[in-house]
């Protein structure tokens, strides 16, 4: 009976790295969860504020004539769309960061390694999306530089 249970335990232990979330690691993870939660919540609040600013517009023209002064609030369609896109994408990205923070916090509090590992999965998705966004941004920037360069060359050849 003892001989039968030994390989089972060995198999179980084979599934683990020789790494644990010890006291120091738990302390670090608790801090990581706290600050990542702050980052994600600040980002969510920031997107809401940006949306309010974009929807209610800003005073971008003011006319004064014969003692009359009036200003106008223009709702710029372009800025609203760009803020909306940023808020949606940023919201999705920061949702994963928030999920990471919550899972790690719960995992540490309940000493549940599975939850901590699930948290790391959310962090992986967060970094992955950020990486993909960065690659797309790099491509757009390079394209913009190339187009500006070609336009500059054609303008110079015409002039």
């Amino acid at each position, binding site marked *: 009976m003892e001989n039968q249970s030994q390989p089972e335990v060995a198999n179980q232990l084979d599934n683990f*790295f*020789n790494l644990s*979330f010890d006291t120091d690691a738990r302390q670090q993870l608790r801090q*990581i969860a706290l600050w990542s939660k702050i980052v994600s919540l600040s980002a969510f609040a920031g997107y809401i504020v940006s949306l309010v600013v974009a929807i209610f517009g800003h005073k971008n023209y003011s006319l004064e004539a014969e003692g009359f002064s009036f200003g106008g609030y223009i709702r710029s369609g372009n800025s609203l769309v760009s803020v909306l896109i940023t808020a949606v994408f940023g919201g999705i990205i920061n949702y994963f960061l928030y999920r990471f923070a919550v899972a790690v916090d719960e995992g540490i509090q309940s000493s549940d390694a599975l939850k901590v590992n699930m948290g790391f999965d959310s962090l992986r998705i967060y970094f*992955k999306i950020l990486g993909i966004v960065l690659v797309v941004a790099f491509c757009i920037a390079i394209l913009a530089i190339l187009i500006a360069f070609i336009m500059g060359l054609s303008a110079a050849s015409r002039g």
Partner: protein
Amino acid sequence: MEEKTPESLLDMHLDYDGGNRLRETVRWSRFLSISGMICLGLCALVLVIAGPKIIAICDESYPGLENFIVPILILFLLLMSVLGVSVFMLYRFSIMTRNGIERQDQAMFNRGLKGLKVYFLISGVLAILGLLFNILTLTSLF
């Protein structure tokens, strides 16, 4: 002192699933940190090469800006250095954690987590400052 029962030993261990997820996390964070370093380097290069020209153009558009150039420059350099430290910490996290997992080195793994903590701490402070700036914009609206 914490008593080490077999249950507690198995309780909070990094399993292979978690380890593999962490490995991929580390791969992406390394990519992000190296890209961040390149971006910061390019920004510094642009500032050094085209700095006087940018200042001249800004001065033309906003007369009287020359009085604020030194504080703006100091603020910009401060932000660049803070971002530099943040990106370096992310790089440290990726290197230390990967090495910690590969060598099964607990101390190195913990140092990697410390790097991630500092990265999120800096990000958190910057996020709060950004939020305050956004709220300031909101209050000036009404």
